[in-house]
């Protein structure tokens, strides 16, 4: 199953300096959700706020939403900014679940990684 893991990577991009970007590519479900939770834990551990970038994701299910919502709650508790971002065009396998669950304003989901990083910086340190 290594080939599938490689085809659907989840990596941390720390080039922003403070905000850690968790880059999620390909298809993600209950099989890769534990890996996503590990990466989100790592990112939370850095303490500088988190962006989850779904631009290159083609499919996410409710296991992924569960991981994203848990990380959101923990980020809020820790006073860290937390934003999910998508690209200009979003795959139906990502857009649809975000739309029908009404989670776009909750997570929240913004368009564009730079906008998301800016939003995270503006909420870093804000308490619940």
């Amino acid at each position, binding site marked *: 199953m290594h080939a599938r893991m490689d085809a659907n990577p989840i990596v941390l991009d720390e080039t922003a300096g403070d905000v850690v970007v968790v880059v999620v590519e390909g298809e993600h479900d209950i099989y890769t*959700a534990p890996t996503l939770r590990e990466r989100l834990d790592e990112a939370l551990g850095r303490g500088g706020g988190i962006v989850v970038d779904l631009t290159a994701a083609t*499919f996410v299910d409710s296991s992924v939403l569960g991981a994203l919502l*848990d990380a959101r709650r923990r980020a809020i508790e820790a006073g860290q900014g937390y934003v999910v971002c998508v690209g200009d065009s979003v*795959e139906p396998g990502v857009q*649809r679940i975000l739309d029908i669950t009404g*989670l776009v304003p909750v997570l929240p989901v913004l368009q564009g990684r730079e906008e998301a990083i800016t939003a995270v910086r503006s909420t870093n340190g804000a308490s619940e």
Partner: protein
Amino acid sequence: MTAPAPEVLLTMPARPEGVGVVRQALAGMADALDFDPTVLADMKMAVTEACTNVVVHAYDEDAGMLEVEMLADETGLTIVVRDHGAGIQPRPARSEAPALGLGLPLIAALSDAFELRGSTGQGTEVRMTFAYSRASDPAEANPVTGNIGAEGRWDPDAESPA
């Protein structure tokens, strides 16, 4: 009474890595039937949620099987996801992380018709039908209600996040 034979029957161990395999098979079937990409996306999501329910809820250990049938007729594609496990129960039989509890609401919202059968100890069967041509968006008739609740589970009555 005779049911039509499935055009595709997949049987595999109910483990997380199998869910993506089901999606691949479904994509091949839907492609052959010339489904609209938006309906295919709904199909993949609903079937993923049904299979995930089997993986998470059906069996106490890694001993059980996941069965998926695909049957095409004049009006659409019916997909049956079945287990022979503990029957319908709200809490996971095994889970690394608590389940969100959004699976069935998503299946209801994404499929054109949906039926759940099962009883304690008899296993569970989720039967979903997707029409070749949709008159309306099923998510409008069966919207997902609620929001994220306390303890990280979905609360169908919540109007805002906990």
